[in-house]
């Protein structure tokens, strides 16, 4: 079983780098690194099919957003053609720069989707939820259920669609959604009730133990207060008084971390699988962090190094720095590790290797 944490470090590093480096050359390096991972896992999981569909959809959306950006954004020198100025929004010159800028940012967004897909294929969602810290157990359970619930509802929707079709139902207007929506809604509701009954019966309500109800109320109030502070802090920081906003954000973070930590101590929970950290995990984490550090330092030092902004007066052709490029290549380490390794089988050794050794979530 792969370690969720090392792969999370890779996925986060790659995503942050994609966000700060809009330069399509660097983004291409990230996409190639992700491609290696994708190839490595695509042999072993049936989930590839559904992600492939989503990636294709992402490509279509990308292609659609290019003309959209070109129509809305009229900056740039090289005019391809013009719409009359009096046309609202789209009126004005349509420039090559805005076409290129739209293409580049769409590309970066698609790269993010691709990283997310590859990460999901490598570490399945349920495994990730199991690795969640104790205080997030409840949120983890909810997410896990949602992940199994959605495909079941899609299947129900198909079944209902078929059933109504053979009754002669045709789709002509919004009123015709009722025969489809109503059964789906009630089916989803009944399913949810049954699942919660089943979970209750197995003691899965995720209760906190050894926590007085007064203290629990206090903690909940603290979380609510922390979230409110967070919201106001962000608003203040953006709009009026940045310093007070920053202070509020720090305070809010402190409150939330304490409340979650304290709740986490009271979740009595053990883990069946222990995630093992292997040498390859160290390699994945170090390489990813090194690439991230290089990207962050470069962005801090000279913004133009990673940016690509033809519409804002930058060069039309993206710049490329060889050293920085080499740093981005480090993101390919996990893909290479995958290519070298055997396809991952569910491994009983992971479970039995270090028995006995109860690890509680305290």
């Amino acid at each position: 079983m792969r370690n969720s944490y090392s792969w999370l470090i890779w996925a986060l590093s790659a995503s942050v780098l994609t966000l700060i480096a809009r330069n399509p050359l660097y983004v291409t390096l990230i996409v190639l690194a992700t491609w290696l991972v994708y190839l490595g896992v695509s042999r072993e999981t049936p989930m590839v099919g559904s992600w492939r569909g989503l990636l294709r959809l992402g490509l279509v959306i990308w292609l659609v957003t290019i003309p959209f950006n070109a129509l809305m954004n009229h900056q740039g020198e090289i005019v391809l053609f013009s719409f009359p100025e009096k046309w609202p929004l789209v009126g004005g010159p349509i420039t090559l720069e805005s076409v290129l800028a739209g293409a580049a940012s769409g590309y970066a967004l698609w790269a993010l989707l691709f990283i997310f897909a590859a990460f999901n294929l490598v570490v399945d969602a349920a495994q990730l939820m199991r690795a969640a810290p104790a205080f997030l157990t409840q949120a983890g359970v909810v997410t896990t259920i949602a992940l199994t619930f959605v495909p079941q509802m899609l299947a129900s929707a198909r079944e209902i669609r078929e059933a109504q079709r053979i009754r002669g139902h045709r789709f002509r207007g919004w009123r015709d959604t009722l025969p489809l929506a109503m059964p789906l809604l009630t089916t989803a509701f009944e399913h949810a009730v049954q699942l919660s009954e089943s979970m209750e019966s197995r003691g899965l309500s995720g209760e906190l133990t050894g926590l007085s109800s007064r203290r629990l109320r206090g903690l909940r109030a603290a979380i609510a207060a922390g979230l409110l502070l967070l919201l106001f802090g962000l608003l203040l920081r953006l709009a009026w008084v940045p310093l007070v906003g920053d202070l509020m954000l720090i305070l809010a973070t402190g409150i939330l971390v304490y409340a979650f930590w304290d709740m986490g101590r009271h979740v009595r929970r053990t883990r069946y699988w222990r995630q093992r950290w292997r040498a390859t995990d160290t390699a994945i984490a170090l390489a990813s962090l090194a690439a991230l550090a290089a990207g962050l330092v470069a962005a801090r030092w000279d913004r133009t190094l990673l940016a690509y902004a033809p519409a804002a007066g930058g060069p039309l052709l993206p710049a490329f720095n060889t050293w920085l490029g080499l740093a981005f290549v480090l993101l390919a380490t996990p893909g290479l590790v995958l290519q070298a390794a055997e396809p991952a089988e569910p491994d009983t050794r992971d479970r039995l290797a270090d028995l006995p050794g109860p690890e509680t979530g305290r």
Partner: protein
Amino acid sequence: MITLRGLTYAYPGAARPVLRDVDLDIPAGAFALVVGASGSGKSTLLRAINGLVPHFSGGTISGDIRVAGRNPVQRGPRGMSASVGFVFQDPESQFVVDTVEAELAFAMENHGISRATMAERIEAVLHRLEMSHLRHRRISTLSGGEKQRVALASTLTLEPQVLVLDEPTSQLDPEGAEQMLALLRRLNREQGLTVVLSEHRLERILPYADQLIFLAGDGSVRSGAPREMLEAIDQAPPLVSLARRLGWHPLPLSVEEARSWVPPGGYVPDTRDLGQRVVAPGPVQVAVVNLGYAYGGRAALQGVTLEIGRGEMVAIMGRNGSGKTTLLKQMVGLLQPAAGTVRVRGQDTRSVPLEELIRIVGYVPQNPNALLFADSVREELAFTRRNHNLPATLPAGLLDALGVAPLVEQYPRDLSVGERQRVALGAILAAEPEIVLLDEPTRGVDREQKEAFMRYLAAERATGRTVIMATHDVELVAQCVDRLILMEDGRCIADGPVREVMFAHPAYCSQIGLLYQDGHTLTPDDVPGGAR
């Protein structure tokens, strides 16, 4: 193990209690069967054992209940989860995580059980339920029977003393159901687990049960040894009702017990002409030639060839996943052949639009909930007629034939499973199709509702309508159907008159058929003196 004293419970807003002043004792190690009509409170009683009632349902409860020395009303389902395991009817909606092993571990993780113990228990449960090979499988890829086994296993990991099951086999094929019950019996005999379960098809479970709990429907509960109870109540499988009519004492509960009453070779048929119950079929309505179909590369139908004539009543049986539903969907045009052809009244389904096919063919899916959406039963039926551009007045006698006439103004979703099933049937029949396809029409339906359905089928036979149904219900087929088709792995392995096919395939033979094994006796009505 389980003691109820003066237990009375009413759902919130209910006019009268569903359980009234119930006294009941279920000793440790018992195998108790709970029977009663739909809505008589079977599920309520079972849910009270682990505290889902009243913790989940609300309502008012009085009296006393003790399970393994604990009070479920006080402790709630979570507090009872280590003593009582609960398995539900629907194999689909009981799981939280994606793989079998993770699902088994999940409940234990939440109970804070040490990793070493978890590993031990999972190993033990997988071994005991003979499902080690399923360990790494994704739950979504399992069959219904396998899923129920996982649901059972995941409750057993908490090592409960009592196992409660709410119609655990109603959605399984006969073989899957048989395996599940054999497993329960083994857990009961070998591990001393107290088992309490409800079930509509008594014939499956009676031989195993040592206590029978009957809910009369008025809130009262009676309990006793199965043999004595069966003398007193109206719920009985075909074998028991035959024995009662012929005065066999003590009442046999299984085919084995009944053997001594039967003359070797069965009854001599020369006194009555049983014949093969075959209506001479009219012109061909459905012709399937060399039909092949696959879902995403997995073959679902292979080389199926058959012809069904006007006025025939045909059953299709076979294990889950053997291709029954796929075949029905091909006949209504929801799916189109990958190989071969399907012709409905001479027209190739590939060249006729679905809108035209559904004027001739009506298809009632397995799950009536997929169909029902309107505010009233009347509105539900009118919707179909409008879609088919038919006048609003319903065909005469339809509501009565289906037994839904008293329900026309009710909200369909509030009805019982059997009633919903019949409203769904009505919603399809409202278009007056010549051919009716039924997918599992008696799933989750109690005896009375099943009898109403059989009366309807008999009436249909008289009108000359063609009825084709996919079903697991052996007794239904033995009583109402002319011709039986068996499917296996997408192939048609037998096709002929019901008697011929049933006696050649004992796994699909009725109880009475298994008892007589004489090639013609299938139902109590076939036995001289056995008819009502």
